């Protein structure tokens, strides 16, 4: 698997479109899309600002991987335990829904934020944003379509993606410890 394909898989696990679909009631496609664009904007800011952010905190990228890995580990473990966080019902104006809860915190979750910062610093913002966008597109589709009768399948997929995230987290932590 190429590095870019690996990064896409990581962000699909971090975004976890199946868990997003289970967590949300059905949103209007335009609202879901607007929320997805908002989350992508937040991801892009994190990816571009990663180097400056770590410099400001006086942390090397190798060290930050350990912290990011812990966040991903916790996020993945929560999803494995409880795939569906709880159904969010649309309320407020479409713009308000798009901003919150869709963009933040549903799509731009702690796992996505940590991944954007860590991989933004390591692999560069372009690859990180591309990988994140693919995960977000799948999540937006899930929001627009809603779980419907696929709920049991989505539950299984969400937990599998949670397990993948835990594996990614373990690798990230080991890398953070082992790298110069």
């Amino acid at each position, binding site marked *: 698997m190429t590095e870019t394909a690996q990064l896409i898989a990581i962000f699909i696990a971090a975004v976890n479109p199946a868990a997003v679909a289970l967590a949300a009631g059905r949103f209007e496609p335009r609202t879901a899309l607007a929320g997805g664009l908002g989350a992508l904007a937040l991801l892009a800011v994190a990816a571009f600002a990663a180097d400056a952010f770590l410099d400001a*905190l*006086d*942390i*090397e990228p*190798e*060290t*930050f991987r*350990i*912290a990011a890995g*812990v*966040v991903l580990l916790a996020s993945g473990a929560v999803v494995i335990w409880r795939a569906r966080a709880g159904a969010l019902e649309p*309320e*407020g104006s479409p713009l*308000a*829904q798009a*901003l*919150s*809860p869709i963009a*933040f*915190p549903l799509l731009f979750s*702690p796992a996505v*934020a940590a991944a954007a910062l860590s991989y933004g610093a390591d692999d560069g913002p372009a690859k990180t944003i591309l990988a994140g966008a693919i995960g977000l597109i799948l999540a937006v589709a899930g929001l627009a379509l809603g779980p419907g009768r696929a709920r049991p399948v989505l539950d299984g997929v969400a937990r599998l993606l949670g397990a993948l995230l835990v594996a990614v987290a373990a690798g990230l932590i080991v890398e953070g*410890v*082992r*790298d*110069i």
Partner: protein
Amino acid sequence: MWRAAGITATAWVAGAIALRVTLAPAQVCPAVTVDGARDSAYEAAAWIERAQADDGSYLYDWDRETGEPVPGYNSVRHAGVTMSLYQLAAETGDLAPIAPADRGLAWMQERLFQRDGWTAMDVPGEGVKLGGNALLLAGLAQRRLATGDGQHDDLMRAVARFLVVLQGPDGSFSSRWLPETGRPNTERSLYATGEAFWALALMHRLFPGEGWDVPVRAVADYLALHRDEVENTKFPPWADQWAAYGFAEMAPLPGLALSDDHVAYVRSLADRFGFLIRADSQRTDGAWSKLIHGRRARAAGAGTWVEALGSLWRLSQADPRLAGLAPKLAERGACGAGMLRDRQITESEAAGKEHAAILGGAWFTEDRTRMDDQQHALSALIRARELIAAHTGKAND
């Protein structure tokens, strides 16, 4: 909805703060210049000389709370301290450290014995140790490199023959020779194997064609391929700065080019020492930091990490397969050197205080300083100059 978003944002901030104080505190690398590292090394050497007794032994351990020396001595550390003085001379071309080092050498020479064509140091209460004899040999080699003086060549060959007596067929070394049985023991030492590796590599450098490359290659293979498994290292690779010294010494020598397995092992050492520097750079002397991250490494510990990074950096200059590591090695080494310099009590800081002669130039951990704190810091700092120059782009102040 906004209330929920606000609660979530607050939870994020709390989580970020928790991460900051546990896993991601600031990594502090005090600035250091080439001249600053040299000055620190010389202050450490001056401490060693001031703390030397008439018989050539050194002040082993001192408690500044009581203002008294702590009883005890260790011949391996004596040999290491002596070696570091010779190393200072070899690295700088300044022969002033030779005199106190020669007094330290005399202490060891009084404890030598000969048998079966070899010579070794036998210290009452400690025995005939691989480590002490390896560092004796390494020190003599550094002396030869510094002075070109061949008066100890026969002694060097005799001690090297002793080291080879302790080497097993798998390239490993026994940690001691047992006078009661006339044979090596069956235990190994985490540090002494690497010390012997480096000392024998120095022999091959100084006396090529005498066959010292054979035991060097054997121990290099053992360290790279088997040691961590055979010796049950808990979190491999063992942070062995002497192995780093050995590989750096052997790489430029004819017939001793590193194998791919050696290179892979060296890379793992680079990762290990880089991590140790990063982790210690996050520690402070505060109570909270000590609770979460543990105490800062003493100079004898941190010094070995910077020594290793210095060796690995030299390897990166000698072997193209390791060239890509050079920038990170320089960065981590400069960070470690900065931490060492920052933590030293300088002579000017000690001036006018009680026991100024023992405070100045030393590193203290929980009010104690030990001679190998100064040894390892001295070796680290004098060799870190090239890493600092590479990292900062400045060859001097």
